[in-house]
């Protein structure tokens, strides 16, 4: 512990504490723009400057570790003027059309400008006017809003190891860009959208489809159905001021009905279906001696990452489509058949915690129903915006169930939204598929939680299943490098089954989650999903009665020919340079 003084207050903090953290502990707030609790400090914005006695220049509080006996001032006239000047300079080349900005009211630059007391932008100089990058179907990049804090680049390179974004140029003409400024759509970008979650301003955001969805809802000739991903129920409440980890499944269904969706279903239904298809695939692979491990396929950011950086592992990826896409097919095949509605009248909307789902829905493989299976994908943030526009506050909604026949779900489906959840759900059913008996303790704790790579061994009769779980693509890379070298050296891997999710924390930490989320919030949302799981009467996917009816009436058996045609897919190899599909001979 070391002693020092901040604004005349004596404090004691552990060695290595930054001035920023020490000041916060002493209840002195220091404004920051580039600092984020989950990223390595970069010190690029300079807003957090403070005075330290004995040093002629101001120091950046986020980058400077407090030392014994230092006398620090965080609120002198010199410090306040310096901060105001820095923010003034940022604003002098910032496209400040705040009222029409997607971040209006949720912008960290707005907050900082207010806190440092900007009354007028006094610096008037050259203004950049750069083209908005709309080359990616999932994401939009507006360089005119960018403040060059570098958070997006840090998360893209350090946490996700995708390296799609980079700084281009130097000095006043620096911009956040992609190689040769060719746009995110012509880069290795996997659409994970973590850059949008970390961006403090309105420079990176989802390519919104709210207008298209409003239009469909207003069209009397259309029958608009909606599905919501497992993670939505643990995120959406935060948009309406509820605590992170408040489960809102029932309120969500009620709100969607009040927005005039014709049928309110639940992606959790097809999460259960995914487990039956994928679980059957894994069990068959083990029985028939197919090269292991089988790796999950639910996360479209992960799928594009695999196609780009690990295409040699394509044969190991489960061919089962993601729950979103399974739902999309059924909404335009099974549901119209049951309901007697022409399939061409159906508009299929999904609400996802994810930006990569927008890309997935538009993949050319995803037309198994004869139509584009999922028409529009909304992120959690977009749904919240639509609800506000519709005059709905989630807090005031009653709890309502989803509609039949695509609405029933088990606890196994709910935990899909957290890292390790798909693995746990699959093991609950795989055990039954292999032994014909139920797994007694369905809580498989070693695969839960925020550790980057998790492993577990699960005895299933004579066989011990070795499984691994990774979340965040940097963690996935570590696991995949290990698997790749095992396969290259011995032709075999130690793992039977592997779950990978592109985003840290799994889907509860997806690129479509509420702005400004932290890892702590993601962890809390994950825990909440396990709480919902524990509260449900059925916790194994094979207990879902509506899924059983679906097989009986429509698909016949798991992995049947019809199931294969509708619910399974294939993967491509992609270029690391531009992310485009590489044609193979």
């Amino acid at each position, binding site marked *: 512990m070391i002693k020092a003084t901040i604004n005349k207050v004596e404090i004691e903090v552990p060695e290595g504490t930054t001035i920023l953290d020490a000041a916060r502990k002493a209840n002195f707030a220091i404004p920051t723009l580039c600092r984020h609790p989950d990223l390595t400090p970069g010190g690029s914005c300079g807003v957090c400057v403070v005075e330290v006695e004995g040093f002629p220049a101001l120091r950046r509080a986020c980058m400077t570790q407090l030392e014994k006996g230092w006398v620090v001032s965080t609120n002198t006239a010199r410090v306040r003027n310096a901060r105001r000047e820095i923010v003034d300079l940022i604003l002098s080349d910032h496209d400040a059309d705040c009222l029409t900005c997607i971040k209006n009211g949720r912008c960290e630059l707005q907050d900082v400008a207010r806190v440092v007391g900007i009354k007028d932008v006094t610096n008037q100089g050259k203004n950049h006017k750069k083209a908005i990058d709309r080359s990616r179907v999932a994401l939009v990049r507006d360089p005119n809003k960018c403040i060059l804090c570098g958070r997006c680049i840090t998360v893209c*390179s350090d946490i996700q190891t995708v*390296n*799609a*974004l*980079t*700084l*281009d*140029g*130097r000095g006043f003409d620096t911009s956040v860009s*992609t*190689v*040769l400024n*060719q746009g995110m759509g012509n*880069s*290795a970008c996997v659409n994970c959208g973590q850059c949008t979650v970390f961006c403090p301003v309105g420079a990176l955001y989802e390519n919104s489809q709210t207008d298209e969805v409003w239009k469909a809802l207003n069209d009397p000739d259309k029958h608009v159905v909606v599905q919501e991903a497992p993670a939505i129920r643990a995120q959406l409440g935060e948009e309406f001021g509820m605590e992170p980890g408040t489960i809102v499944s029932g309120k969500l269904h009620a709100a969607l009905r009040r927005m005039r969706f014709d049928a309110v279903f639940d992606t959790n239904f097809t999460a259960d279906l995914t487990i039956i298809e994928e679980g059957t695939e894994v069990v068959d692979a083990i029985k028939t001696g197919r090269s292991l491990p089988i790796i999950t396929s639910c996360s479209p950011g992960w799928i594009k990452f695999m196609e780009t950086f690990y295409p040699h592992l394509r044969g190991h990826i489960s061919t089962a489509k993601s729950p979103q896409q399974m739902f999309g097919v059924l909404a335009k095949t099974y549901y119209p058949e049951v309901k007697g509605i022409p399939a061409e009248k159906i508009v299929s909307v999904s609400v996802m915690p994810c930006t990569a789902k927008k890309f997935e829905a538009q993949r050319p493989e995803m037309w198994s129903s004869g139509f584009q299976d999922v028409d529009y994908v909304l992120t959690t943030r977009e749904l919240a915006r639509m609800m506000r526009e519709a005059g709905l506050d989630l807090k005031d909604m009653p709890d309502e169930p989803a509609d039949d026949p695509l609405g029933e779900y088990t606890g196994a489906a709910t935990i899909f939204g957290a890292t390790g959840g798909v693995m746990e759900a699959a093991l609950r059913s795989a055990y039954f598929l292999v032994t014909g008996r139920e797994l007694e303790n369905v809580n498989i704790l070693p695969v839960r939680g925020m550790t980057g790579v998790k492993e577990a061994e699960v005895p299933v009769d004579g066989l011990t299943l070795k499984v691994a779980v990774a979340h965040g693509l940097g963690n996935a890379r570590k696991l995949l490098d290990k698997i790749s070298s095992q396969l290259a050296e011995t032709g075999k891997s130690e793992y039977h089954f592997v779950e990978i999710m592109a985003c840290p924390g799994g889907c509860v930490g997806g690129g479509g989650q509420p702005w400004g989320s932290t890892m702590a919030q993601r962890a809390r949302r994950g825990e909440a999903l396990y709480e919902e799981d524990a509260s449900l009467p059925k916790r194994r996917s094979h207990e879902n009665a509506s899924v059983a009816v679906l097989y009986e009436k429509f698909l016949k058996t798991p992995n049947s020919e019809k199931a294969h045609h509708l619910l399974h897919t294939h993967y491509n190899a992609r270029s*690391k*340079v531009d992310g485009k599909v590489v044609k193979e001979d």
Partner: protein
Amino acid sequence: MSDQHTCACADAQEEELYPKLSEIVEGNRGKPENLIMVLHKAQNLFGYLPKKVQQIVAEGLGLSLSQVYGVVTFYSFFSTSPKGRNTIKVCLGTACYVRGGQQALGKVENELGIKVGGTTEDRRYSVDVVRCIGACGLAPAMLVNDDVYGRVKTTKVMEILDRYE
């Protein structure tokens, strides 16, 4: 785009340089810390750093293309557009500036239809600016390749440039 070529013969010549690039990269395989040195050598070889060269360097050193591109665009020494056969450097040091260096530069830019840092489509000329070449007594001064020209009047510019094919 900057790595598009207009001249087929230059492409053919460039193709012959790739085996040499492979040698440079091979000696630094898996060593990202040598990036700047490797880029220096690559630029000496090609005269500039087209996307394909950056890609080969990235792959060899174990970096992503965007990381290499970030470094290339940060340092003004590196160029992503091809250089001409003849490099014109107009001096804008203090003495040359006050004696009409800016006008000489303007003339070069207008006549060749390119800006500072640019290269003519036929790759005959590239134009750059330098700050003092120690020929202040001859101001305004201009370099074409290694030849120094002093007291460059705007009327003389094209006469000088025409000497270089």
